[in-house]
């Protein structure tokens, strides 16, 4: 799986959140948010992460930028292990992996102007500004498609799309290599979504970014990503190239997701797979495949043995007993 061009390698990443309670505040149970997620990311690639609510997509993103400390597993950034590093040791990597947040209304400090917010980041990470701080900030603001006079405004003076652009500018202010975008367009209007996605695409080329793009919208993923990671209850069920998404999707869950996505072509009819039941509780994981309870093709083995993510063809790992 690994090669020299991999900028990020994630192996068997687990994130369990303890739930405390009782008089002695002991750990009563755990939320199994991530259960052994593995993938690798080449420089300049855009990886989409898709799945339904609560499947651990956002937790994965937050583990990558170390907002959460993973319980187990490893994150290798250019071959350097990031898990287990202290606050100080992590500092050089902080500015190389940044994040864009979902809600543009809560992702900006309401009391800081755009200039203050960007300057804070650039100063903190000592980003070189050959033409002075003001010039750097103004250029950055223009790069994300805002007018120069936006720099002295407060967040409440902007619309949602403009705020998201400011959020992107803030993430870019420290010149990162990897950008984790946690549903960056799901809170925006459809018309604005396209603008922000196109902006991200332009910036990706301009800054040479590698992107992890978390979304629950398959259309956006198809439009934007090179590869897609399909997640279900903290597990990766399938990883495939976006071009293969419709042709080669192998896992029943991926198929169901694709089937639920409306297609604007009345002649292109395909069987609608309606999943029954609910996602199992993340507190107590089922012994077999997490998806077995809802899978339309599940067999006895699926309920008892957990499948592993195995490569079924070149660059197409699937975690299912029934796929050869």
């Amino acid at each position: 799986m690994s090669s020299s061009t991999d900028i990020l390698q994630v192996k068997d990443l687990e994130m369990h959140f303890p739930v405390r309670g009782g008089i002695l505040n002991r750990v009563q149970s755990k939320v199994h948010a991530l259960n052994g997620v593995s993938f690798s990311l080449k420089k300049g690639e855009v990886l989409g992460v898709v799945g339904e609510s609560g499947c651990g997509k956002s937790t994965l993103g937050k583990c990558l930028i170390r907002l959460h400390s993973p319980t187990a597993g490893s994150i290798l950034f250019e071959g350097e292990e990031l898990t287990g590093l202290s606050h100080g040791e992590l500092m050089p990597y902080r500015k190389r992996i940044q994040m864009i947040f979902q809600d543009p209304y809560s992702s900006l400090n309401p009391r800081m102007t755009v200039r203050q917010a960007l300057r804070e980041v650039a100063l903190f990470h000592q980003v070189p500004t050959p033409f002075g701080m003001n010039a750097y900030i103004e250029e950055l603001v223009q790069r994300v498609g805002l007018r120069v006079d936006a720099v002295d405004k407060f967040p409440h003076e902007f619309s949602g799309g403009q705020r998201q652009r400011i959020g992107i500018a803030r993430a870019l202010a420290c010149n990162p290599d990897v950008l984790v975008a946690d549903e960056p367009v799901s809170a925006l209007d459809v018309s604005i979504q396209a603008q922000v996605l196109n902006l991200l695409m332009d910036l990706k080329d301009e800054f040479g970014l590698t992107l992890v793009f978390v979304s629950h919208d398959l259309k956006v993923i198809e439009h934007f990503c090179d590869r897609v990671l399909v997640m279900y209850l903290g597990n990766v069920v399938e990883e495939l190239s976006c071009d293969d998404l419709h042709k080669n999707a192998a896992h029943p869950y991926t198929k169901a997701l694709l089937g639920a996505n409306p297609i604007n072509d009345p002649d292109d009819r395909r069987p609608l797979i309606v999943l029954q039941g609910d996602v199992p509780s993340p507190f107590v994981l089922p012994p077999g495949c997490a998806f077995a309870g809802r899978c339309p093709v599940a067999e006895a083995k699926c309920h008892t043995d957990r499948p592993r993510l195995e490569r079924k063809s070149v660059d197409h790992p699937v975690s299912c007993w029934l796929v050869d």
Partner: protein
Amino acid sequence: MSSTPQATSAPSWWSKFLQGRGVRKFKRDKMAIGSLVVILVYLLCALAVGLNVLEKEDAFARVGPGWTPGFGGTQNGEKRLQDAEFRIEQIERAAAATQAEDALKALNFGALVPFSNDPEVVSARVAEAWAIFNATVEYDDLEEDPAAAKLLLDLESKVEELYTQPTGLSSLVHSLRMSLGTDLQGRSIMFRALYSTKVAVQIGIISALFSVLLGTLLGAAAGYFGGWVDHLVIWLYSTFSSIPWIVLLMVLASAFRGGPFDGTLIPVYAAFCMSFWISPCRVIRGEVMKLKELEYVQAASAMGFGKIQILLKHIIPNTAHLMFINFSLLFVGAIKAEVILSFLGLGVKGQPSWGVMISQAKAEVLNGFFWQIGAATFFMVILVLAFNILSDALQDAFDPKHV
């Protein structure tokens, strides 16, 4: 790159603030503007007292016979006689003093001066006045008897002649001084009430400021760090809030008695801060717990900012509105609490305050003399009312959800 074109192209935050929606809404509210003016008058008054425009001696000086009613109110004959007696005595004492300075001190009328600098002339006129006084005292009924009434009028005009009548500013000061009458000891109620304004504002500002600071500090630490810090702070404020605040105030105020700070306002500040920090602490702890989950705080920690830096730059500034609300509530609360504490004899000592005035008025009210308690209550009620109206209006004007 110079910063001048920046400064001119971008309006300053202050002019932006003045043009903002909140300020425009506030300006339309006439009650709010009125209450703001009232509060400013109080603050100016407190500042003037602080700058010694009105000195502590003015609040303690004996300026007339005890229990003179305010607004030059009608007095019975007995009161008028007392007034004349007081004034003759004052002039006599002034004339008897050998030094000019002593004379002023003995007179202590501030703006009022004897008609002559020559002690001989003054004592001759004083003797005449005493003669009329002694004649008047003979009568039992000063009002019904025409002869007595005439004598009383004579006496009063004689007394008037003993003084140089004040003119201009000094006459204004004198009428202000006498406007609300005098208390039992003959001290100017108006000046005492004005001096108390400074005491009240001082106690209000200092107690509210330190309570809010303490509460914010502890509340923010508890909310942000959680864990044992949170448990400790919760334990502290649940313990403190389980004691009725008035009892806590009394205990603390009496604990300071006889100590090095006795006679200063420090025991009062300490008592207020220890019981008032709880409500800002509780509110701000909750707000911080909410804020720390917001994405801009997560973004800041993804940037690598330290916890203290995030707390100071991204969290505490966003609780400013709660700090303001709590400050205004505690300011009013401290003023009212000071009155209660002073009424109980545990508060302000060695200087007048509205509470001290109300406490001293206990005996007067039973005798039908209401000027002192009326003045103190009026001054306090107007300030508290104005503050309540203002904080309501501010909340309405600056609440983004309020139309």
